[in-house]
Structure formats: structure tokens, C-alpha cells
């Protein structure tokens, strides 16, 4: 049921985000990679996404700012935050601001897919 779900992946590490997109694609998702908050906002304005996977720490527009913008554009968009180890505070703060959940990098792909599925299921 999750196949073809469109997912917006936002992270300033291009290699990370494109590889993750590739892996999700292999698993039947329709991922879209953005390497900055600004790019993510532009994509959200133009397309529909079922879930957004968003890195908290990014130069320029930070993850939390992107989340605020997403709340304006797509209040129902479930957002899964990505944080580094030792930065759980950021994840917790994000959840207070309405994030669906947060995961710590490096990611376990199965866990991510599980969270994505949960988010889509909850939102539908």
C-alpha cells in the first residue's frame, strides 16, 4: 500500500540524500531529493508529497524552519526528522513542533520505511 508513496528527502549531504532516494526507489517509493531547505520548500509548493524526511541541521534554512514552512504549505504532511547522535534534543523539539517522529543517523532503512509506513497510515 505504500508503494508509489511520494517522499520528499531533505538533507544538505547530497551523496546521502541521493543514495537514500535510490534505495527507497528500489523499494517502490517515489522519492524526491532536496539538498537545502529552500529547495525543499520550492518542491513542496509545486508537488504533493506523502511524507517528508527532513535533516534538522542544515546550513541556511535549518530543518526546523523548513518544518515551520511546511506547516503553512501542507499542515497535514507527516514529517520524519533526522538528527545526529547526541542531538536528540533537536528531535524532541521537532516533535513538540509537530513532527511525526525522529530518527538518528546513520539510518536503518527498515526502520525508516517502517516510520514512513506508519506516518502514511496515520495520515490516511
Amino acid at each position, binding site marked *: 500500500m505504500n508503494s508509489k508513496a511520494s517522499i520528499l528527502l531533505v538533507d544538505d549531504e547530497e551523496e*546521502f540524500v541521493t*543514495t537514500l532516494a535510490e*534505495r527507497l526507489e528500489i523499494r517502490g517509493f517515489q522519492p524526491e531529493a532536496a539538498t537545502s531547505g529552500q529547495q525543499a520548500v520550492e518542491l513542496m509548493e509545486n508537488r504533493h508529497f506523502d511524507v517528508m524526511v527532513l535533516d534538522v541541521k542544515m546550513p541556511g534554512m535549518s530543518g526546523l524552519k523548513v518544518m515551520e514552512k511546511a506547516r503553512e504549505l501542507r499542515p497535514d504532511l507527516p514529517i520524519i526528522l533526522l538528527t*545526529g547522535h*547526541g*542531538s536528540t534534543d533537536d528531535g524532541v523539539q521537532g516533535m513538540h513542533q509537530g513532527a511525526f517522529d525522529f530518527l538518528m543517523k*546513520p539510518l536503518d*532503512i527498515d526502520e525508516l520505511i517502517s516510520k514512513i509506513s506508519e506516518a502514511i497510515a496515520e495520515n490516511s
Partner: protein
Amino acid sequence: MPETRTWRESVKKMRGQEDKKKNLPRRYKTLRRNITALMILVTIIPLTVMAVTSALQYQKNIKAERITPMQAIASKTAHSFELFMEERLSALHFIASSYSSEILSGQATLHRIFRILREEYGGYVDLGLINNEGRQVSYTGPYDLLNKDYSDQQWFHEARVRGVYLSDVFMGYRDLPHIALAVENLNEKGESWILRATMDTKKFRDLLSQVNLDPIRDAFIVNDEGVLQSDSRLYGKVLENCPLELPDSSSGTQVKEVTDPDGRNVVMIYSPLVKYDFGLVMVLPQTSIYKAWHSLKQEIFFVYIASVALIILVVFSSTHRLVKRIREADEKRETAFRELEYTQKLSSIGRLAAGVAHEINNPLSIINEKAGLMKDLVDHDMHHDKEKLMRSVNQVLNSVDRCRNITHRLLGFAKRIGVKYEVLDVNEVLRETLGFLEKEAHHRDLQIEFNLPEDLPRISSDRGQLQQVFLNILSNAFAAVDDGGRVVLSTFEHDENTVAVSIGDNGHGMSEETMSQIFEPFFTTKKGYGTGLGLPITYGIVNKLGGDIKVESKVGEGTVFTIFLPTQPPGDRDNEQ
């Protein structure tokens, strides 16, 4: 204008501690040498002055004590001689005044007077009357001198001119020393006549024998020409020339230390007779005078040497103990400072840990995803796409490289504090250190401006220590600026021996009061997370590396830290100088 304050003003106490850490053995050797020299000087100089002064004073006193009585004896004896001469001349005067020349011309009368004279005074050998033509008109004595003509003799004329005459000692007819006396008088016609007497010098020996009681002394009479008028025990018989150089007879009794022609060191006391052309000479060996002094001098010298030896022993021993204690105290303080430094280092590492963890997390995430992708390709039977696989493998390797760089930097930072000099490019170390904070700069949109000339001279310094210095100051700069703030890194050649690194920010700046305390341990403006050790430790390291730090700051405008680093290690420069 920004206020400028060098760290020297802020951390005088710490500087004292740090200086002590340099060149420990040599520094303590110099300290010990200086204290020893100073203590020896301040004790031995007064001791020496006191010993010399006392010795000279003793010498003076002993000399006075021994010579003054001798001087008195010499003066007294000379005076006795004078009295003797006076008396003999007075007797002649009395006779010449009491009797007329006519009476004295009578042989019988003259003989009778001569006999009384001999009985009363003794020593008279003959007596004669000489008329104004120089002829002896009456004579009584052992020789046949009646009618002898004295008109061509010197004494006759001298007696006529002076009215009185006293001869030097001469050898008489029996080869015995004699002395002649003559007084002039006038008869009723106004014609002069002379009464002349000859005396032996036995009385001289009697007078001198009182002085010559002590066998080590020699006393004798000399005339103005230095001819002996009495026998000398050491310097010859009567009428021989006295070999000693006599002092001027007009200056009263005099004392001279001389070496006589036989090489004897003697003290000569010369007492001239005031009215007559004679002088009394008393000679004493110097050893008899200075015997007590030499003995005392030896004792003083022994006490002096013993005191000096004792002082040197005590000074060496106490200085050794003192310097040892100073050194121990310095070492304890150094150990405490090192511990503090290490604690701060651990604190710095802790502060870095979050940033580094995030930095390492990113390549790890890439490795994770790339490895996951390769697994996915295999699982989904898509592994035939070799190019895709290789790209993933390369990216895994690249990410591993990134991790390795980070761990290398960390390892360099975590090395022990001891200084290890190597030739360095300061620009490279600065860039490398900035690598720790690159991510933070990136995330906070900080503008990092570089002004790092390629031709900057290389310096000999410690890479790890410099990294810590730069990291501490860069961390402060980053903390001082808001997001989007500016940090400017510059390096330049300050002078031919110094390279400077300037780290400026446009942050909050510091008040003068804050600036005065920034190098003091445990002072912090970062309430809650600052240790207050960053800048003191930074100071300590820069000082250890032989450098200096200057701070300029103004509230609301920013701060510039300038670190001056020597191109050569401090020890090398000292050696060159």
C-alpha cells in the same frame, strides 16, 4: 579606537609561573650561583674590611706601644747629652767670668783651677788660655802645649766669632777620642781671650750605656755629617761614617723603618740635640717591634680564613637547600598547572565531541547508505551494473577518508602537552584547525575571511599546541558572533623573527573590565558552559612556545586576538643571542 591590552598586564602572576618552567636546570643553576655570590659578597666583604681595618689598627697600636717608649728614651738620652755639654760649657764660662785673663795666665792658678775642675766634674784632660793672637799663654795638662799657636785653626776663629765652641770628637795624642770646648771672654783692655779645655768621651759611653742595656738595641751619637761620635755596636767605631741615612735634624725625634747595608730590617729612632750639631741614633731590629704584631696577624689571618670557610660552607649549604625548595615549589606549581591544562584540554575535547560526532556522523551515514544500496542491488539482482557498484564503493572510500581526516585531527589534538618542535606552515595549521569548526561555520552561515599570504615564513613550533591555541581563540570568536557573523583570519610577518596570527570577529566585544580578567583562570563570561580555563591555558601554551598575545576589543564592534609566534623555538633564540 579599540582598547588594547597586552596579556602581560592581565596575567603577571601566571607569567611568573610560566617563566620558571623554561630551562629549568640552567635557570636554577644561575639562581643558585647568583644567590651564592650575593650572600658571599655581603658577608665576606664586611668581614674582610673589618679584618683589614682591625689588623691595621692593631699594627698601629702595637707599633705605637713599642716605639713610643723607645722614642721617649731616645729623647731623654739626647737631652741628657745636651745637659752634659751645657754643664761643661757652663763650668768653663764660670771660670772665664770669675777670673781675669791675667790670673788665669798664671800656670799655678790655672793648674789649681784645673785640678778642682777635674775633681768636681771629671773627664777633663787639659785646660789652657789662648790670647787674642791665638797663642796658648798658659796650659795645664798631660801634653806640652804651652805657647802653641792656634791662630790658623778653624776652632779658634769660630770661638772668636760665636763666643763659644764645641768640637766634634777627635783622636787625641794618646789615640783616645776627645772633645774640645772653648769660651771667649774680654780683658780690661777689650782684648779677647779664650779658655779652652779638652775632655775625654767616657761620659758619652756612660750616658749611652743606659740605652744599650738591652743587647738587641744599638745607640750611638753622630754629628751632622753622619760621622760616628761614639762607638756603635753594629755600624763601626768612633769617627767612622755611619752607613745609615739620617733624617733631617730640624724635625725633632723621628722614627724610620729602614734596611741597613747588611740587609737588617731595623727601626731607627733619631733624636737630634737641639743646641749642638749632634744627634742620638737608636736602632732596633724590626722583628723585636713587630713580633707581637706578626703573632697577632697570624691569629687574625687564621680566624679570617676559618670564618670565610665557614661562611662559604653555610652559604653553599643554605643556598642549595633554598634553591632546592624553590625548585620543588616550582615543580609542584608546574604539575598543578599541567593538571589544570590537561583538565582544560579534556574540557575542550568534550566541547568538540558534539561537533565532531556530527561531522563523523555524516560520512558514516553516507557509508551506511552506500553499503545499504550495494546490498539492495545484490538483493534485487541489480548488481550487474558495475559502474553503479564502483561509484558506491568509491564514495564509501571517500567517506572513510573524511572520517580518517577527522580522527587524525582529533588524535593530534589529544596528544600529551609536552612540546615537540617541527617546521610548520602556520597557514596550514590554521586551516586544519578551522576544519574542526567548519561544520558549525557552515550551519551558522558564518563568513570566514582568509588573508593568509602564501609566502609567510615557516616557523619551528608544536603543531598540537598551536592547534589548541587556534581552536580556543576560534571557538571564542565563534561564540562571540551571532549567526551570519564574520570571522577574519590573517597571518603576517611581524618582524624577521616573528610571525603573527590575527583572529578577529565582529561579535559582541568586551568591556575593559572583562579584558582585564580574560587571562585569569576560572574567569568566564559563558555562564553555565565555560570553564574559564581556555584563555589562561592558551596564554600558557603561547608563552611556552616563546610567543605573546595581544587583544583589542570594543563592546558591540568585536574583538581581535593577535598571536605572535617566534620563528625559532625560544631556547634556540637564546642560544643565538
